[in-house]
């Protein structure tokens, strides 16, 4: 038996496969299709201090090998999460990580401190990279100074594992990664969606209600892989890789590029049991190449 376990700071994962925020609901949506407790972690939908209705419909456009979304952080707010969702998701026997977003630093800090009190939430993923909201979101994640500012403020209020989700919509992602590492992040996850756009030529109108949206899916994988490789060399904290992962081979490429764990996002929409297949596929790969565990291939690009 190969060792699939890995670590993100002090957070122990039974395997490196997580599901990405906004693509896996609260986990329960997928329970009919797979054993969700096999996952290394489930990162639940972006949660904000106050409820958010999100953006108007239409919010999605399919693109060649990808999709654009403009959901805009629709969620019922952190209090609703604590009262109604947490009691259910805490029963799931794997790490439940909450993705935290906000419009201003104080929003992030307040939401993180509330989540900090929940015993069965061992980590948060700070979303400073959502491209679909007018205020906050990606605005914090595109400059090293503002990224460091929000992370250091949250760090003071949050004492468990702090993962920071980075935006690819920057000139140099390693600069942002180093800034948040310096501000106290335990890990960085990348990439969030790439800002894109779709037009309906017949109607001469944008397809998305917000005109622009976040692109994800296999089309962004090469960009994500490059950024993970660059970032893993630039920081000492563990890197979590995501962006277009659709198979165990894709996941292994991210691990080889230096990711300590990976997230599956858009692929969950195409095959709701894909993450289980990726876990099995990683194990098969390790056996086939006579490795003892996942640790042997993290950053093992020759």
């Amino acid at each position, binding site marked *: 038996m190969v060792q699939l376990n890995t670590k993100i700071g002090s957070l122990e994962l039974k395997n490196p496969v997580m599901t990405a925020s906004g693509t896996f609901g609260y986990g329960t949506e997928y329970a009919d299709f797979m054993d969700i407790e096999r996952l290394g972690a489930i990162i639940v939908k972006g949660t904000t201090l106050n409820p958010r209705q999100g953006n108007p419909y239409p*919010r999605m456009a399919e693109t060649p090998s990808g999709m654009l979304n403009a*959901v805009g952080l629709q969620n019922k707010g952190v209090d609703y999460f604590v009262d109604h969702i947490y009691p259910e998701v805490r029963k799931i026997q794997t790490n439940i990580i909450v993705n935290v977003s906000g419009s201003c630093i104080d929003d992030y800090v307040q939401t993180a401190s509330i989540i900090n009190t929940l015993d069965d939430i061992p980590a948060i993923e700070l979303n400073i990279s959502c491209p679909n909201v007018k205020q906050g979101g990606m605005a914090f994640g595109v400059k090293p100074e503002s990224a460091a500012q929000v992370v250091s403020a949250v760090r003071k209020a949050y004492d468990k594992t702090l993962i920071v989700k980075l935006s690819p919509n920057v000139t140099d992602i390693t600069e942002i990664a180093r800034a948040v590492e310096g501000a106290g992040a335990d890990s960085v996850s990348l990439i969030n969606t790439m800002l894109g756009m779709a037009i309906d030529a017949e109607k001469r109108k944008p397809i998305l209600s917000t005109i622009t949206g976040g692109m994800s899916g296999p089309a962004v994988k090469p960009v994500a892989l490059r950024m993970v490789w660059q970032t893993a060399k630039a920081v000492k904290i563990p890197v979590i890789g995501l962006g277009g992962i659709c198979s165990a081979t894709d996941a292994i490429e991210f691990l080889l590029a230096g990711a300590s764990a990976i997230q599956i996002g858009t692929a969950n929409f195409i095959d709701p*049991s894909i993450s289980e297949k990726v876990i099995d596929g990683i194990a098969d790969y390790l056996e086939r190449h006579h490795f003892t565990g996942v640790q042997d291939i993290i950053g093992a690009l020759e």
Partner: protein
Amino acid sequence: MPHCQLSILNFKLPSQYIYILMKKFQTDMLVADNRMVGPGATLLTLSFPGELPDMVAGQFAELQVPSAKVLLRRPISIHFIDRERKLVEFLIQIVGEGTSSLAALKQGDTLNVLLPLGNGFNYRSTHISKPLLIGGGVGMAPLLFLGQELSGHGIRPTFLFGGRTEALILRQEEFRKYGDLFITTEDGSAGEKGFVTNHSLLMDSEQFDRIYACGPTPMLKAVAHWAKDHETACEVSLEHRMACGIGACLCCVEDTADSGNVCVCKVGPVFNIDRLKWFN
């Protein structure tokens, strides 16, 4: 009509929560048949490996698309089921690459399918005696399954279908097995000329106690306004652009009066018009 028998810990659940209890399946299905049944419309028959799960008319399936050019599944409503032969039929309008490649499937091919998804028409827990089923274009698809279900409960529904021209009123013989069929066409080639809401059937607003409608949004809105004006209960099936089909991605939302944005794939696709913000 039988009332909903589902209960958990003695709490009777309203029918709109049936979907929470209905197990969804991801399975490979065998193509039993696939043939054109009208201009740009194919009837895809898939065989389920095992007993067919319980399904409500108005629910849909997410069909994998057998083309490398297309990423996402296609949400297609359940058109008809043959429980004995374990078959599920889908009436598919060919509109783009995804539906074209579904139309190209051959007998013996396999296709990965998620079903049953969403929340169908409310007929199991509501007393209905004279339902009117209104369909526009290929939007008539789920109404055959609904006719089949209603017929199983001893109810003979009335169908009212609209289309641009006669050839686009599909599967007329099959619908007539379950109820009377009335037609409107925009060019007058069959039935009455005009839109469904202009049909003379609607002159007597008292004769129907519930309307179930599926079709293009402008038609649904016209039907909903008619139903509101004539105080007739009405449910419509919405067709929003979806990604996951299971309420995870939050892409396919409709703004409702009671809960704001909700997923059409999970809370819908069928909505009672009282929940919709269509009347301001």
